[in-house]
Structures are given as structure tokens and as C-alpha cells.
């Protein structure tokens, strides 16, 4: 992809585009504090993954994040970025190689958007041409029009400012990004959009990311791995979202992820991830006997009917057959259909809303892909393994 090339080909300091991060028995104690802010925190984030630090307020998640770029210094233990201890690096130099996004964004009000994005390249002494080229790439990458570079932050909406914050953090193609509640100050609708945009962006840029939030739903959505932290900066569980929801380590994690963790797990999978019931539809014109046989095989008294192009047109109660072939005039229209990208949670909701009848799933071209029943969805909830 183009946007990365300027930074990568000319090299920053020999870093790959993403670097692994490791916390080793990290502790932080403030002078005079009765107990540690962070206690013996150990976990590893593989290169290119999003690690979400989540927990109630006061659990030390932001402190843990700020230890990485030495905005706060360690008391004990070590943090390794690409195998090198951050304690051995000069703070300012280290920070220039780590993207930094905070909730309030902190754009410089006296600089234009382009100048804001160019902050780290300027600190690194890039020449004017290379910086300008990189700024243009980044604005495009985060979906902002090029002309916006000349504006001042006060002229932008919250969502636009947030995108600028991400572009600014990515400017020097850092191997690691730190993001402290980056979408926390955005309204729910725009937050969802920004989350999706960021996930799409991450699929392209593949950075190692430490993402702090107090919102477990955001953690489940954004994280490849989730570190649940509790008071006193202790790690309660470090797992993938699916493991966390299927098998919480203790009561604290179970209550933090919520009683609806089963439903939350359903958001992690799409219909594409499970095998649908197929071959389960009657065609317009099928003889009554064939249709009845199909219904018996499926142990149902209602058939899904498709037209000649395999496009579902409705449901047919078996008792309406009365010896006549399947007719489009007899079917009840469908209340809803789902696509393969529909999440299991949404599918469940549609099934329940339609009197627990199997949900019709269609492909992009509108043809029947299969059916999904309540049983299929609950099977998917069984703990892994």
C-alpha cells in the first residue's frame, strides 16, 4: 500500500512496520502512595495485534499504557519494545517512534491540520517535500479531503479531529501505537463508524496497538487480545475476546464482562462462520408430495419457498398445500432476511422477533444461502474445545 511506503522505504530507525511489545513484571509505585498503582504486570503483545487494556476506573490501565512511552517511568520490571528495554531509550527519541492518540486528541490549535500531522516528521528532521507527501498520504488514508490540510482544528467536527489525531500518530509509521480511549469523547453513532474505520485501517497498516478503554463492548470489538485489569493495577485475565467471554477467569472478570457475555460472544461471529441448514427450500411448482416430504425431513410444518432464480419469496405452511403444487400465491412474505455478514447476535434477534422461525440467509446476489435456526446459534455458543 502506498501510504506506508514513504516512511518505510526511507526507514525510521531500522524498525519493522510493527514490533512486539512485552510487559515483564512491571510495577509502578508513586512516592508516598500506600499501595502500588501497577503490580507485577506481565503480558506480551505479538507484532501487528491490537491489545486492549480494559478495566474499571482507577485500575491503572492508562498508567500502564503511559509506562510504555515513558510518559511515566517504571518503578520495577521492564517493558521491551522489539526486544529492547524502553528504560534504555531517551524518552523524546522513544516517543517519536511510538504513535500516541489520547481521548481529547490534543491537536495544536495554532497549527493547521497539515502542520499538526507533520509534527513528528518535523521533529525527526524530514525534508519539506517528503513531509508534504506523507501528510497528503495520511489525510487520504484516514479519509479526509486534501483541502482540509489548510484548516485549523477549531474548524473541524469531533470526528474529523479524531481522524486527524490518528493520522498525526501514524505520521512517522511507528511500529507501535498507544491509544488512550481514542473514541471516548465521540457520540455513539460516530464512535461506531470510527471504530469500524479504524479496524479497516488496521487491516492495512498492521500496527502493534495498545488500546485503553473502560468499555468492555469496545474492548471486545477492537481487541485481538484483551487484558482485563482490576484495582491496584493487577492483571485479572489476558485472553482473546472469545476466550474471555466463554471462560472468564474469576468472578471479577465474569461480572466485568457482564451477565450477557453469551450474547456478546455472538457479536464476535458472523453467519459466515457457522454452517447453515441448506437445501431446505421448496421451489415454486414443486408437487405437493415432494414439498410435504421435504417438510417431514426437516421436521417442520412450514417451508421456505424460492422462485425459479433461487430467490426466497416467503414461507408456506404445509397445511395450505392441500394436494396442489407449491404456488407463489399461497406463501406468506418474509419478515426479514440476513446476509452472511450478519452477526450471530443480530441473527438471534431476527429469529426471536419472527417467532423462533428459522432465519432466511441470502447471498449478495439475493439467492438463498441457507437457513439458520435457534439451535444452530446456541450450538455456536458452546465453549471452545
Amino acid at each position: 500500500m502506498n501510504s506506508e511506503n514513504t516512511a518505510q522505504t526511507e526507514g525510521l530507525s531500522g524498525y519493522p512496520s510493527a514490533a512486539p511489545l512485552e510487559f515483564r513484571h512491571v510495577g509502578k509505585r508513586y512516592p508516598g502512595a500506600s499501595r502500588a498503582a501497577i503490580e507485577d504486570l506481565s503480558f506480551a503483545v505479538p507484532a501487528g495485534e491490537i491489545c486492549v487494556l480494559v478495566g474499571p476506573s482507577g485500575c491503572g490501565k492508562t498508567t500502564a499504557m503511559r509506562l510504555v512511552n515513558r510518559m511515566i517511568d517504571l518503578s520495577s520490571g521492564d517493558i521491551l519494545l522489539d526486544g529492547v528495554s524502553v528504560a534504555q531509550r531517551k524518552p523524546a527519541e522513544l516517543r517519536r517512534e511510538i504513535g500516541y492518540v489520547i481521548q481529547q486528541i490534543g491537536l495544536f490549535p495554532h497549527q493547521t491540520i497539515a502542520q499538526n500531522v507533520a509534527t513528528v516528521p518535523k521533529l525527526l528532521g524530514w525534508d519539506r517535500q517528503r513531509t508534504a507527501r506523507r501528510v497528503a498520504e495520511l489525510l487520504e488514508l484516514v479519509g479526509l479531503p486534501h483541502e482540509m490540510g489548510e484548516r485549523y482544528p477549531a474548524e473541524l467536527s469531533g470526528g474529523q479531529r479524531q481522524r486527524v489525531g490518528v493520522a498525526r500518530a501514524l505520521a512517522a509509521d511507528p511500529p507501535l501505537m498507544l491509544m488512550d480511549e481514542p473514541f471516548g469523547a465521540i457520540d455513539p453513532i460516530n464512535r461506531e463508524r470510527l471504530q469500524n474505520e479504524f479496524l479497516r485501517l488496521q487491516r492495512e497498516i498492521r500496527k502493534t496497538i495498545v488500546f485503553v478503554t473502560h468499555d468492555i463492548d469496545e474492548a471486545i470489538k477492537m481487541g485481538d487480545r484483551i487484558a482485563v485489569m482490576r484495582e491496584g493495577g493487577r492483571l485479572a485475565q489476558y485472553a482473546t475476546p472469545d476466550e474471555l467471554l466463554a471462560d472468564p477467569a474469576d468472578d471479577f472478570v465474569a461480572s466485568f464482562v457482564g451477565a450477557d457475555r453469551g450474547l456478546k460472544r455472538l457479536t464476535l461471529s458472523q453467519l459466515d462462520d457457522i454452517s447453515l441448514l441448506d437445501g431446505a427450500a421448496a421451489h415454486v411448482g414443486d408437487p405437493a408430495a415432494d414439498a410435504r416430504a421435504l417438510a417431514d425431513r426437516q421436521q417442520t410444518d412450514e417451508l421456505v419457498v424460492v422462485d425459479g432464480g433461487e430467490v426466497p419469496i416467503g414461507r408456506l405452511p404445509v397445511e395450505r398445500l392441500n394436494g396442489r403444487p407449491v404456488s407463489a400465491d399461497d406463501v406468506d412474505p418474509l419478515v426479514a432476511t440476513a446476509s452472511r455478514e450478519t452477526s450471530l447476535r443480530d441473527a438471534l434477534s431476527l429469529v426471536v422477533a419472527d417467532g423462533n422461525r428459522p432465519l432466511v440467509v441470502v447471498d449478495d446476489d439475493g439467492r438463498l444461502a441457507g437457513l439458520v435456526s435457534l439451535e444452530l446459534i446456541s450450538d455456536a455458543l458452546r465453549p471452545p474445545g
Partner: protein
Amino acid sequence: MTAALAAPFAQSDPVIPEFGRGSSCVRDNGLFCWGWVKDNWSDTLQPALLEHIALTLIAVLIGSLIAFALALAAHKRGWMATPVVVVTGFLYTIPSLALFQLLVPITGLTRTTAEIALVSYTLLILFRNMLAGLSGVPAEVRDAALGMGMTERQLLWKVELPLALPAIVAGLRIATVTVISLATVAVFVVNEGLGAPIYSALQQTFKTELIAAGALCVALALVADGLLVLVQRALSPWTRTARP
């Protein structure tokens, strides 16, 4: 002054030269005589105006340097703010004539004495505005700047000072206008600036000179204030933008 007394002056050698040489407006001590202003512009008013500008510039410049150093120190070490405000606030309250009296035994009847007094009146205003400007920088902006790898020095020069500029210029405007008005009193220690023609006009109760020098003083204050506004606008274009 009566007409009977004025007539002999016109014929014989004038007792007070300026009165004698002038027009009837000057002889009658009219409210404002343009002729006198024109005749005395180049050897009285213009030099006084230039001296006044010099007095003001030096005072504001030195005051700014001292206040800047104090504001930077107090910005780093918060506890310094209060003692600095107390001391500069005390200086600000001393009546100017009393301050001259205190300084004359030390520095004599010199321009230095005048400048020390003028500078001391700028410090409180300049310090307070500079510090308010620096500490008015939002915490998240400082955090982002440091988090992206700026050093403390880069933070100060590239972020904090540009953002503090509107507050700093606001302080400079008040300090400059104050000094321009106060510098007229400097005539008690050194015969310079627009205070000189004002003082001599008061002694002679000569209205034109009093009004001309006073008006120059006001005009100078307005021009200086306007120039500073222009400087502030040119240096901080972002303050004029808002969300459309």
C-alpha cells in the same frame, strides 16, 4: 493675561520669547493655535515625541524581558507565582512621584531613574498575562506534544508560547498604554518626553502647548495599541477561525 498687558509685550522685547513671537492667537493664549504647533513642531514637539517613544520602548522592552524570565520560572515552578505577584504588585502600588523620590538619591536625576520607575510599573501586568497565557495551554495539548516526542524546550517554543501569544500581547497593550501615559511624569527627574512641553505649558498656563502635547500622548497610545493588535492578528491567525 489682559489686553492692556499684552500690548506693550508686542512692541518691546518680549519677556517670554515664545509668546512674543507668536500670532495674536498665541498672544491671547487662545484655546488652540495651529500656527504655534507648526512653528514649534520641529524644535519642541517632535523631539519630545521621539524621546517619549524611546522612553516607552525601552521601558516596555526591559519590562518584557524581566517579566518573561519571571513568567518562565513561575511556569516551571508553580510556587514562584505568588511571591512574584506580591512583589510586582507592591511596585505597582507605589505612587510614581514617591518612587522617583526614592530613586533619585541612588541613580540621580537621570533617564535611568525614569526607566526604573516605568519598568517597575509594567512588571505586574506583563507577568500576570504571560503566566496566564502559558498556563492556559490545555493539558491535553501539552500531553500530546510531549507524547509525540517534543522536548520541554520544543514544547515551550513551538506550542506553549505561540498559544500564549494572544494573552501576552493583551498584557503588552495595557503595559504600553500605561507607560505612555506615565512617562509624562518622568519630567520630574529628566527633561525628556512629552512631559517636558506639558510641564512648561503648565508653568506658563499656555493652553496650546498643553493641549498639543497631551493630544500627542493620547494619539501615541492609540497608535501603539492599534499596532499591537495588528501584530497579534498577524502572528496568531488561528484565533480568527471558528467552526463554520
